[in-house]
C-alpha cells in the first residue's frame, strides 16, 4: 500500500460503562479503497464506525483523516473534512420529507449548482427518491430508507463513506442494487469502510477486510483471501 492512508485508526478503545466494547482496534483505509469489517453480532463493528464518526466517545486512541486528528474536532466538523456516515438503523429523519433528508446531506455545501446536479444523480440511481420526494421519509419501506441513507451520505461528496449494515433486512434484489451503486461510487474514487453481516457481499466488494471478535481485530487480509479462509467460511459464510 502507498505511503499515507486516508483514514488511520490507532488503538481505538470504547467503553460502555465498565464494559470495554473496543479493545484497541487499528485499521487503515487508503484513498479509493474499500475495507470491510465483518464479525459476529456484538463484536464491535458498529461501535468502530460510531467512534470514528464521533456518534459515541472513544476512551482512547487516535483517528486521523489525512493526518488530522478527528477525535479532537467537534462532531459536526467531520463532514466538511470529507467523512460521511450512513449509520446503523439508517438514521433517517422520519418526520422530514424524503427531499429534505436528501438536502440535509448537503447542508454545508454552498455550491447550489453542484448540489442540484448531485440530487439529479441520486434520483437517477434511486428513482424512488424522486417519486417520493415530498412524502415524509417515515412512509418509505426499509429498503427505500436504506437507499435514502446511502444517497444522503453521498450528497456531501465524501472522500470516505462509513456504511453500517447497508443490506440489513433487505430483499436480495435491493441488496444487489445497493451494492451495485456502492461499486459505482467506489469506482468514482470514494473510499468505503463497510460493516456487514452479509460477509459474502462485503468480501466480494472489498479490497481488504478485517474480522472483529469481541472488540479486537482477529484477522486481516484481502477480500479474496478471507473469502478463501476456512475459518471465515465456517464462522461467517455459513459453511
Amino acid at each position, binding site marked *: 500500500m502507498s505511503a499515507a492512508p486516508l483514514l488511520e485508526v490507532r488503538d481505538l478503545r470504547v467503553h460502555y460503562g465498565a464494559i470495554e466494547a473496543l479493545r484497541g482496534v487499528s485499521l487503515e483505509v487508503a484513498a479509493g479503497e474499500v475495507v470491510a469489517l465483518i464479525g459476529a453480532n456484538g463484536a464491535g463493528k458498529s461501535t468502530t464506525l460510531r467512534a470514528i*464518526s*464521533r*456518534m459515541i466517545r472513544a476512551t482512547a486512541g487516535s483517528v486521523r483523516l489525512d493526518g488530522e486528528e478527528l477525535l479532537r474536532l*467537534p*462532531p*459536526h*466538523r*467531520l*463532514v*466538511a473534512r470529507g467523512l*460521511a*456516515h450512513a*449509520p446503523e*438503523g439508517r*438514521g433517517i*429523519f*422520519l*418526520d*422530514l420529507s424524503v427531499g*429534505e433528508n436528501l*438536502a*440535509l*446531506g448537503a*447542508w*454545508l455545501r454552498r455550491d447550489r449548482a453542484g448540489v442540484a446536479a448531485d440530487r439529479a444523480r441520486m434520483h437517477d440511481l434511486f428513482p424512488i427518491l424522486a417519486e417520493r420526494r415530498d412524502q415524509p421519509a*417515515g412512509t*418509505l*419501506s*426499509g429498503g427505500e*430508507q436504506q437507499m435514502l441513507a446511502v444517497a*444522503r451520505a453521498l450528497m*456531501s461528496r465524501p472522500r470516505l463513506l462509513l456504511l453500517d449494515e447497508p443490506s440489513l*433486512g433487505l430483499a436480495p434484489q435491493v441488496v444487489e442494487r445497493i451494492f451495485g451503486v456502492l461499486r459505482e461510487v467506489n469506482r468514482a474514487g470514494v473510499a468505503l469502510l463497510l460493516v456487514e453481516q452479509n460477509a459474502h457481499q462485503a468480501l466480494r466488494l472489498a479490497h481488504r477486510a478485517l474480522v472483529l471478535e469481541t472488540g479486537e481485530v482477529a484477522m486481516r487480509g484481502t477480500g479474496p483471501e478471507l473469502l478463501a479462509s476456512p475459518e471465515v467460511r465456517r464462522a461467517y459464510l455459513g459453511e
Partner: protein
Amino acid sequence: MPARLVELLQHLVNGLSVGTIYALIALGYTMVYGVLKLINFAHGDVYMVGAFSGYYLAGRLVPERAAGAPPPGLAGATLQAALVTLGAMAVCALLGLAIERFAYRPLRGRARLTSLITAIGVSLLLEYGFQLQPIRGLPVAFPPGPTPRFFPELLPRADWSLGGVSLSNYDVIGLAVAVALMIGLQLVVYRTRFGTAMRAVSFDPKVAALMGIPVDRIIAGTFALGSALAAAAAILNAVPRPQIHPLFGLLPGLKAFVAAVLGGIGSVPGAMVGGLALGLAEELVAGYTASSFKDAIAFTVLILVLLFRPDGLFGRARVEKV
C-alpha cells in the same frame, strides 16, 4: 342578535384573545422540548422578563405623556409600540441565549433530571431576583421589586360593539400580531435552513451532527426564538391587562406548558392549537359555570391528556421501520 349568541360570541372573542397568548408561550416550550427534550420551566419567567423589558423600554420611549405633551398621533404611537415589542423580543432572545449557554449547556449529556432541577432554579432566580430592591445608580429602577407595576398604554384604546359583542382594537391587533408571528414561525421552521436543521436536531441530534449541523448553535437559536415569542406574548398581554409583577409569569407559564402538552409536546402546530383550545376552554367554562373554576381548567386538561392521550393531539408515536 339573540342574547345567548351574543354571549357565546363574546366568550369566543375573549377566549381567542387569551388563547393566542398561551399559544405563543407554548411554542417556546415545545420548540425547546423538541431540540433538548427538556421542559424549560424558566420559560414563564422569560415571559415575565419580556413584560418588564417592554415596561422599561416604553418608559424611555414614551416618557412624557403625563406631562401634557400632545399624544404622538396614531402613526407615531404604532411605531413606538412596534419598537417596544421588538426591543422586548430582542432582550428576551438574549436572555434565552444566556440561559441556554450558562444554565443548560454545561449539563448537556448529564442525567435529564439535573437539567430539570436547573430549570426550576433559573425560574426561581428570575422570580426572586426581580423582587429585589432597585439598584442605586441605574438609569431605570431595576430590579422592579415586588410591587405591581402598570404597563403604559402604548396605543390609545378604542372599543367597538358589533351587534352587542364588545371588541377593542387591542383584541384585533393582538390577534393579528399573534397570527402573523405564528405564520412567520411556521415559515422559519418549514422553509429555512435553520428550521430544517432544527427539525433534524429535534429528531436525532447525533445524526444531525453527522450532516454537519452545529447542534449547539441550533439549540441556542431555538432558545432565542422561543424566548422572543414569549416576549411578544407578554407585550400583547400587558397592553390590555396592564398589571405586571415578578411572579406574574408563573400561571401563564404553567398554562402554556399544559397547552403544549395538549397539542403534543414537540409539535409546533400542536402548540398553536393547544394554546387556542385551552384559552377557549377556560373562557367557556368560566363563562358558563363559575369563574372561580377558570384556573382549574388547565390542570384538569393536563390530567385528562396525560391519562388518555399522553402524546397530545398532534403527538405521533414514533415507529421505526426495520
